[in-house]
């Protein structure tokens, strides 16, 4: 298992590839199978700016989500 903080829901993603288009770190690649969700090719090159989420037309339904990696969490008092 590798870093996997970015996940794309196959059911909810419409394969528009907008995230592939705009990700400044070039984390994604289009799926060779047209219309299918993009591939998260290089998650370790993510800057965590969230542009993919803000450009995803379906992120509000959870098509593309970022789960903050454990080592970046918890800098606050519960």
């Amino acid at each position, binding site marked *: 298992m590798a*870093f996997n903080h970015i996940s794309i829901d196959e059911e909810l993603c419409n394969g528009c590839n907008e995230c592939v*288009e*705009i*990700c*400044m*770190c*070039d984390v994604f*690649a289009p799926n060779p199978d047209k219309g299918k969700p993009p591939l998260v*090719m*290089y998650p*370790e*090159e*993510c*800057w*965590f*700016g*969230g*542009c993919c*989420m*803000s*450009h995803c037309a379906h992120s509000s339904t959870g098509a593309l989500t*970022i*789960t*903050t*990696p454990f*080592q*970046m*969490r*918890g*800098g*606050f*008092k*519960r």
Partner: protein
Amino acid sequence: MPRLKVVPVETDVLIIGGGLAGCMAAIKAAESPDLRVTLVDKSNTKRSGCAASGIDHTWAYIPPVHEKMGYTIENMAEDHRQVISYGFFRKDLFHLVAGSNYERVLDLERWGINFRYEDSKAPGKFRIVPQFHSVPTSFNFDGGPLKPILTKEVENRGVAIINRVQMTDLVTADGRISGAVGVNVRTGDIHFFRAKAVVLSSGRSNRLSRNPTGFDFNTRMPSPMSGDGTSMAIRAGLPVINIEFLSNILGPAACGNYNPNYGDPRNTVQPAARIIDGQGNVIVPRTRFFDWENLGKEKWTEEVRRRWIEERKASRGVKRDLAKRLAQGEGPFYLDFSEATDQEIDYIEWSIRNEGKGNQFMRYFQEEEGADLRKNKQEYAGLWPREISGTAAKGLWVSKDLETEITNLFAAGDEVAGLPWQASSGAFTQGWHAGEVAAKRARKQKGFLPLSEEIMKARNEVCTEMLNRKVGFYWKEVEIGVQNLMDFYCGDVRSEAMLQRGMERLEDAKAAPMKAENPHELGRCLDVKSIIDNAELVLRSSLERRESRPIPFGFYRADFPEQDDENWLVFLAIRKEPDGVFSFSKIAVDR
């Protein structure tokens, strides 16, 4: 071995880097309908550069507010010179930036960025907050969608945008710019540009140091910016200044966690939290809403500046001491919003969401953790990942019209050095100005200059080799090696022997054969080449600066522990001579 495909591109004005500065340059240059303008970005201009995911503030001299206060642009320049630049200051650049950014703000507003708020009591219904000067000079604004909006404006003016091309080389003819070379990181094609004028606006030099989170690209400013412009410029023989100031700046941030300095006092989020220790003792009191109702009514006097300097020194001093106090076992420290009103919390959350990783931070904090700014104190301490301090502002030495020593080659934004913390203000105004002058020059130049193919062919060969190598290092191995080397030999404490050893080790990195399995990895290999070039400049310039200079420069030479203003309150310029030898010169700062 078959070489990579070469795509020739002819344009009148070429802009390298489509961040804030590059987009503004493209918009301005394209006002001339007779000119072909091309904007190249290694990512996608919709989301690239420091403002990729948003930006929420920009400073300016604001005539409708400041004139009434009797606060002149000269007063503001003096604030900036003394307190923000610590003397490392260019007056001509300050006047360009401060004096024209209000006009750029009005442009941005015309293009659809919101700067005015019904609840604001300030003149013009702006939100103007104190940041860098003795009176409020920074606009707060809804800059989350700034890059997509600017891209639209660029497109509307007929500019050709070429995304995913990473620029690698400048081509000159008898001291004049004639073109440039880049590599498409999606296709692997070599792009060979012929241009009459070029604006270099590729931004900062990041990734010179390891990131403690284990995510190497989790830098403070966006990680794609690997100092490509500096690398190209130094290989073209141009002088670069201030690059020795790679340091651990005490940001009020704990980079090991996902809790940056959102809402700390005396930052751009106003009102702000207070800083407390584990026992609840207040280290720095909180700030409240600025007195906007009276903004512009109070007359500015030298006394206002004196008070501001004192306050700033006190709060900055305390914030800087946190690192020391941590080392003495006095941590942890927290940002505490518990006293904020609902209205203030709304404002703070709005402000955080508009810039950088703030939107993601708030989403994580609230949605993934179910946390609440008022109830859950954020831990606050530690150091930023190492980067070239904004106070130093490394980059190219340019003329007052932003031209480099290569005729018709201009620079803008973070590519330009000499005005600390120019940030978005520098990008908006210098991009605009560079675009204007570059267009003028391109129009004046009748034909294209001869375009030597030598550099392009050499670049093609290097890239072809990396893509075809059977055995070679993965780019990240070399990048991490260089970062570790910089942290060890060119860290918080530097000395002649360690820096020289660092340069020896860097030779190994230069010689390391990298292997790329596809164009994306080829792009990363090119990043690493830029990082190595930048690292070499930091090492060499650190060796040359024989003094120490405290935070925010954070430059400490164990063998020259004293600050030496008499000899070293100067811009140190490094350049590579045609014979490959590096030379230095000192350039006076403006007083």
